[in-house]
C-alpha cells in the first residue's frame, strides 16, 4: 500500500450506445478508475417490437437490450458495470410532467428534464455519495475553465453539439462532470468504436424520445391519459373564425403544418394553443414570426446574464442575437433582433457567449 497512486474515480453513465461507450473507453485510457452505470428506465424492448412488427427498430437508449450492450462494452473494457433502477423516477419526474405539459398545450423537452433530474440530478448525487470524483456521459459538449471556474461549453463539432440539452445542469455540479467527447466528431467516435472492436460501433443514433415506443408522442398521450374522454375542440384562424375541429390540443405543437386537416388557399401553421378555451389557432407562416418571449425557471452559470447574447429556442434552431431583461419576478424577457419562427412554450431558451453556455430557461409565453 502507499505505492499505488490513488486513481480518480469516474462514474460513466452508459446507455449502451456508441457515444457513451467510447466516452468510457477514453476515460479508462486516460488513467481514470472508471465504473459503468446504466439507468434502467422501465422501457421494454419487447413491447416496442410487438408494436412495430416488421418495422425497422431504431435502437433507443435504456431498454433491456441496451443494458446488455452496455454490460458487454464494460466487460470488453474491463470495468465494473451496474444498473440502476430509475423506472419510478422516470415516471415521476419525466413521463408524468411530459404528458401534463402537452395537455397544457406546451411542447416539452424531456431530454432536458432527464438531464436535470436524472443524469445530472439523482445519478450525480448518487455518484458523489458513493465516493466518485466525477460523472461522465457521452454527450457532445465540454466543460471549460474560465477564470478558473468550470463552464458548460459547446462541442467542437458544432453539428453534433448537445450543450442545448445540458443547460439544466446545476452550476455547483459543473466541477464534477467530464464530457470526454468534447473535441471529437461523430465520425471520429465511430472510428474509435470500430478500432477497439465495439460490436455496437455501427449502432444507429437515437433520435426520438426514449420512452415513446412508436415515435408518435400523440398516441402515447392518448393511451396514457385521455383514453375515452371527449377532448375535441375548435380550430380557429387568427381572426377568430372557426375552421374546423381538433381531437385534443396535445396533437399540436406551435409551428406545426402537417396534420391540421383543414384545406386553405395558403399553408396553415399552428400559431397558438389556447388551453383555457380548448382552441387551436392557425394562420399563415408570417404570423409565426415573433420577437419576444418570456422564460422562467432559469438555470444560470453566470451571476448575471449580459444584456445582449445569442440564444437558441430549440435544439435545431440557428442561434440568434437577442436582448435579455430580468423582470421583477425572476423571469426573463427576451427580445430577438430578428423575428423568430415558432417560439414554443415548454421548450427551452439557451444563451451563449461564443462557445460558452451562459444558462437557459423554459419558455412560458411568446409575445407579439
Amino acid at each position: 500500500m502507499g505505492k499505488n497512486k490513488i486513481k480518480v474515480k469516474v462514474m460513466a453513465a452508459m446507455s449502451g450506445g456508441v457515444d457513451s461507450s467510447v466516452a468510457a473507453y477514453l476515460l479508462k485510457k486516460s488513467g481514470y478508475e472508471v465504473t459503468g452505470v446504466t439507468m434502467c428506465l422501465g422501457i421494454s424492448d419487447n413491447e416496442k417490437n410487438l408494436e412495430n412488427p416488421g418495422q425497422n427498430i431504431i435502437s433507443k437508449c435504456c431498454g433491456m437490450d441496451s443494458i446488455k450492450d452496455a454490460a458487454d462494452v464494460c466487460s470488453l473494457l474491463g470495468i465494473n458495470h451496474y444498473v440502476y433502477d430509475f423506472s419510478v423516477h422516470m415516471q415521476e419526474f419525466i413521463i408524468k410532467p411530459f404528458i401534463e405539459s402537452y395537455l397544457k398545450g406546451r411542447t416539452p423537452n424531456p431530454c432536458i428534464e432527464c438531464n436535470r433530474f436524472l443524469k445530472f440530478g439523482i445519478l450525480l448525487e448518487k455518484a458523489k455519495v458513493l465516493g466518485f470524483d466525477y460523472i461522465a456521459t457521452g454527450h457532445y459538449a465540454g466543460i471549460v475553465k474560465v477564470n478558473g471556474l468550470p463552464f458548460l461549453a459547446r462541442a467542437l463539432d458544432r453539428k453534433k453539439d448537445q450543450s442545448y440539452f445540458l443547460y439544466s445542469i446545476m452550476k455547483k455540479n459543473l466541477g464534477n462532470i467530464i464530457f470526454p467527447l468534447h473535441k471529437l466528431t461523430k465520425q471520429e467516435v465511430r472510428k474509435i468504436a470500430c478500432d477497439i472492436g465495439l460490436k455496437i460501433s455501427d449502432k444507429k443514433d437515437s433520435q426520438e424520445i426514449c420512452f415513446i415506443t412508436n415515435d408518435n408522442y400523440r398516441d402515447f398521450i392518448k393511451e396514457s391519459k385521455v383514453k375515452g374522454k371527449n377532448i375535441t375542440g375548435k380550430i380557429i384562424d387568427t381572426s377568430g373564425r372557426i375552421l374546423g375541429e381538433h381531437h385534443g390540443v396535445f396533437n399540436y405543437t406551435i409551428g406545426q403544418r402537417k396534420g391540421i386537416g383543414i384545406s386553405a388557399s395558403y399553408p396553415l401553421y399552428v400559431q397558438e394553443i389556447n388551453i383555457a378555451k380548448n382552441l387551436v389557432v392557425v394562420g399563415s407562416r408570417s404570423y409565426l414570426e415573433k420577437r419576444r418571449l418570456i422564460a422562467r425557471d432559469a438555470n444560470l452559470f453566470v451571476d448575471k446574464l449580459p444584456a445582449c447574447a445569442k440564444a437558441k429556442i430549440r435544439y435545431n434552431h440557428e442561434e440568434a442575437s437577442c436582448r435579455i431583461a430580468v423582470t421583477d419576478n425572476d423571469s426573463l424577457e427576451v427580445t430577438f433582433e430578428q423575428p423568430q419562427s415558432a417560439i414554443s412554450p415548454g421548450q427551452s431558451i439557451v444563451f451563449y457567449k461564443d462557445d460558452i453556455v451562459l444558462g437557459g430557461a423554459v419558455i412560458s409565453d411568446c409575445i407579439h
Partner: protein
Amino acid sequence: MKKIYLDNAATTRTDPEALKAMIQYFSGIYGNPSSIHSFGQEAKNAMEHSRFIAADFINASPEEIIFTGSGTESDNLAIKGVAYANGFRKTHIITSAIEHHAVLESCHNLEQSGFKISYIPVDSYGFVKLDDIKKAISKNTLLISIMHANNEIGTIQPVEEIGKIARENDIYYHMDAVQTFGHINIDVDKIGVDLLSASAHKLYGPKGVGLLYKRKGVKISPIITGGSQEYKLRASTENVPGIVGFGKAIELSKILIENEIAVQTRLRDKFIKGVNENIKNAFLNGHPARRLPNNINFSFDFIEGEGILMGLDMEGIAASTGSACSSGIMEPSYVIKAIGRNSVLARGSVRFSLGRFNTEDEIDFALKTLIKLVKRLRKISPLIK
C-alpha cells in the same frame, strides 16, 4: 481492499477439500463410467461412492439418487418427468407463487400442454397456507411442488405438513431443496417427499452438478434421452469430477452442518438486530426465526437495491438485490411482491447470505458499512417526500 462475500445463496466458493478430491478425476482417473474396462470401473466406483454419500445424507437409498447437471435441471426433470410418465392421466399441479423460476417455468410449460396449475399464494412471511393447498386438491391432482426454503427470503415452509397432505391424498410431493440441501437437515421419510432437487454449488461443491432424489416406485420419464446413464433417466456421460466434488461437499456438510447452523444463526440474528436498531424504515423480509440460518433480506424504503449493492461492492462487500434490471428483468422481485411489499420496497430489497467462510468481523464490517451507506443514500433520495 478486503473482499467480503455475502452472496452464498447465489453460489458458494468450492471448498478446497472438494476441489482437491475432484482434481484427480480430470487427467488421472478419466474413464467413462459406462466403459467396462478398469478405467471406466474406477470412475464408476468414485461416482457410486458419491451417490452413496448423497443418499445417506437424506436418509435415502443410492438407487434413489439421479445425478443431473444442475438444480434447475432436477426441477425440470421432477415436474415434467412425473407429468410425462403419468401419460397426462392426471393434469393438475399445485405449486406456490414464490417457487424458483425452474419450477414455475416447468409448470408454465406444462400449462401450455393442457395442465392446470394452482399457484398457492403466501402470507406476509412467505408461508404457504396449508388450507389453500387442501382446497386446491382435486382427483386430478398429480403433484405438489413446494420448495423447502425460499432462495430470496429464506422462509422455511411447513414441508412435513405438506408431505402429509400429499400422502393422504395420494399425490406426489416434489420439494425444491436447492437452498437447504447441506444447510439444514433433511430426512426424506420424515418429510414424506417423493422427489427432491439439490445442487452442488450451493453447498461448497462445484457448479454444473445437481441431483434429483426420486423415491422408489415413483415413475418419471427422462427429459434428456440418448443413453442409459442414471437408470435411463438422464442420458449424458456423467460429470465424474463434478459428482466426486459434490460427494465430498456433502461429506463436509455432514460433519459441519450442526456447527454452521449454530454459528450462522447467531451472526444472522446479530445482523438483523443491528439493522433494526440502526436503520429506520428497514423491513425484514421473511420470518424472523423460521428462516434459513444464512439468509438475511431487508427492504429499505426510499432507495433501490442496486444503489445499495453498488455502494457495498465499492467497499468490497458482495450482496444481491430484488431489483433485477441488471439481469434483464423489468419487474422487481416477484417473491418480495408476493409477501405484500409494494414495488418500491421490492426494488429496495437486499439479500445478504452468509457462508462457511465468513467471519464475525466480516459481518460486523458489512453491517457498519450498510448502516452508513443507507443513511447517505437516503439523504439524496428524491422519493422521500
